[in-house]
């Protein structure tokens, strides 16, 4: 029993961590939290099932196409919901514009795909439902690959350093001549791809289901909020801890009370440390 709690906890936790990284990647580039973060995760599952099961494409082609579409959704988020409000005085408009876009994505999926969870293809065919089944370790592997990839990008490539520069000081980066807008679009495309990877790798676990978007929006946000905005390390630790806690609570109390427990822990922790456990406070300008 313990083994399956840990396996499913780590698997679902890795998905939450990845969605947390999606939030962070979008935030770093634009100072905007987007409700579409969970939706690209959901699309990863739905698109994978669409391309591979419904259209019968080879797995690898389906995977690549999923990433392409997810990246496009990321770019669309930037162009439609983020860029227009960045210049507006009222900075809170992004909450509404990204919420609107997320709802539209969710609704189109519900109507054009299905309102019921649809099966997701077996990717490798390893394992038979035991704790070492591929559906449990694929998300963890995906999470590790993304982290290593991001580390490499940020530390060893010029583009990655440019991302960091934008995140650190937007004005200074522009003054240095960095193409801020293109880098922001690239960041959102990358965020979309990470979301696509999260959804695709967890497809066998979460299925291709439109309502996963809202679920991932919330549970992917919890580790970000608790770990501190823009802090990927916090998101990973928080995500894995959340997944384990949720699965354990699920086992001990049962489904509904597990979500209630997660929610209460989230609210209490957030009220105690509004900046997140690893975050820093920023002073207000008067």
């Amino acid at each position: 029993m313990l083994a399956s709690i840990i396996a499913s906890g780590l698997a679902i936790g890795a998905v939450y961590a990845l969605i947390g990284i999606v939030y962070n990647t979008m935030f770093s580039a634009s100072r905007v939290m987007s409700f579409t973060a969970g939706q690209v995760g959901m699309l990863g599952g739905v698109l994978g099932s669409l391309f591979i099961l419904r259209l019968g494409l080879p797995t690898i082609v389906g995977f690549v196409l999923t990433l392409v579409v997810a990246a496009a959704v990321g770019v669309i988020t930037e162009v439609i919901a983020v860029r227009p409000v960045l210049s507006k005085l009222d900075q809170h408009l992004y909450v509404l514009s990204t919420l609107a876009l997320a709802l539209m994505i969710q609704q189109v999926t519900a109507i054009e795909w299905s309102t019921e969870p649809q099966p997701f293809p077996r990717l490798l065919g390893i394992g038979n439902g035991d704790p070492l089944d591929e559906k449990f370790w694929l998300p963890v592997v995906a999470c590790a690959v993304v982290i290593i990839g991001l580390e490499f990008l940020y530390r060893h490539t010029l583009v990655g350093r440019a991302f960091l520069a934008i995140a650190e000081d937007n004005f200074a980066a522009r003054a240095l001549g960095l193409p801020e807008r293109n880098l922001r679009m690239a960041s959102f495309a990358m965020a979309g791809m990470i979301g696509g990877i999260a959804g695709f790798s967890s497809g066998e676990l979460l299925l291709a289901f439109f309502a996963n978007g809202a679920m991932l929006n919330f549970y992917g946000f919890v580790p970000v909020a608790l770990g501190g905005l823009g802090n990927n390390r916090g998101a990973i630790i928080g995500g894995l801890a959340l997944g384990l806690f949720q699965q354990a609570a699920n086992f001990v109390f049962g489904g509904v009370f597990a979500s209630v427990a997660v929610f209460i822990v989230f609210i209490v922790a957030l009220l105690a440390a509004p900046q997140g456990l690893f975050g820093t406070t920023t002073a207000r300008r008067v």
Partner: protein
Amino acid sequence: MATEVKGLSDITAPSSRGGISAALHGSLQLLVVLALAILLPFVANDYWTLIGTRAAIYWVLVSGLNLAVGFGGQLAIGYVALLTLGAYTSSILVLGNLGPPWPAFGALAITGVVGAIAGVIIGLPALRLRTFYFAMTTLGFATIVTQIALAWQSVTGGGIGVPGPVLPKPFDTTVGFYFFCLVAAALCTWMTWNISHSRFGRSLVAIRDAEVAAEATGISKAGLLIAVFLFSGAVASIAGGLFATLQSYITPDAFTFDLTVLFFIAILIGGRGSIIGPLLGTIILTVLPEFAAPLVAWSTFLYAALLLVIVLAIPGGIADLLDFANRKPLESNRAIIPRPALLSELLNHGSARETISLTGVVLAFGGVRAIDGLDLEIRPGQVHGLIGPNGSGKTTTLNVISGYNSPESGRIAFGARDLAHGAPQTRAGLGIARTFQTPRLIGEASVLQNVMIGGTIDGTATFVESLLCLPRHRRDEIALRKEAMIALRTVGLESLAAVRADRLQHSELRFMEIARALMLHPLFLLLDEPAAGLSTDEIKRLGELIKEISRRGTGVLLVEHHADLIFDICDHVTVLNLGKELASGTPGDIRAHKEVVSAYLGA
């Protein structure tokens, strides 16, 4: 002098007429909607009456939510949680699943109380969390409430649901229930109208658009938001009770995410800080699916698309389209002529005896010591100038006094008392007012309302009194309005009282901020570069006004770059450099001070 006397006699005449006619215009629009609603059952069939009932119930919820979202700018998205809670509470109480069965109206009353408590629980995180975080937590509540309704089968019936309460005669027919809901909706409209025209409504908007200025005028964000969440929670929950009666049978499925989106979007389509707008928004969104039956499945998509268009294209919503008065062009070359003589009406506290004194104040931002062991004394009845090059700590000093920055060491005393560090909302109560380097205004409110904000702490009526428009509320409003008009005449902006503040020129905003500060009858007035961006004539008039303010016994701290103004009106000047006092004395001393002349004033 003759003009001044004339000015005094018709202080309230011209622009309060403008204000009242605007209010009349607003209530007229609401009355037209009410009249049409009363006619509905007589001209339409039962089906449309049911839709009317639905719209009325939604409006009961939205009217309260409007105070939190539209006026207060708190993005509480998951209000469907309260609708669900109210529906289940009233149904379960009437059914007797939890304790003895209750009569329908008693159950509705308890539903309101439960909703008020839940409203505060859902709303309170707003005090600590940023917008997106808060929006997320309210969404979380919406999910949790539905899940509990599903899981607690013995009480809620789980997925099967429970019957909604039936109201006694004569409200058990379609038309009877419609009029019951209509009365509830009208009552909610009236109450929120009262709040929107009270210091509470203005304070909510101030928190939304100019939180820093709201703190400086002593508005307590916590107290205000708790009152608003109590009220909006109660009406949302009662709306849930009525919704259960309308549905006659409720299951968790009835409370879809679509509904919460509908409520939220109705307010944004309507326009923030308006009542008629969100009301029309609610009606339109309720009726819209009836006209587009094939599109019902797409309704959430359409709502979301509408939200996106509104946010990106017309952030003002319907209310902006109905605001005809503010489309008239303003006179193009207006001059601001302050009337310092009118100050006797505002500042008659006699001379304050206490001083504000700073001793050994140190404040560092990271490695930069913005203030480095500063001593300063501001005396009543004097203008104290604070000059120095950029980054010398002038504004920071002002922020330390008004509580926005807390010093690391040192003492800030007001008379014998110490001023609490980092508590800006306490300064207004002590009679310390201030203006800001960049004017902090509420763009969507009129100039008069912006100035009335300054007198918020003088109000005596409680939230409930304002809600019900009781005598104390009416007296408050009359007194505040009169005083705000005097303040506007004093600074010379009375002709613009009814104009939206964001249509003013920069120089006019500076004078408007002074008028707002004067509403506190300040013992001390802290001015942060009031002359920046003003013309030479305007600076001269500003100087006369400031000088007269100090002659009425108010101590003035003037942070300025215009050396002429400083030397013209100051009784005492302190020169700062790198957070330290470089020189201090009368304007004559400073002008002769060698170091100051070479470092700052130029030869």
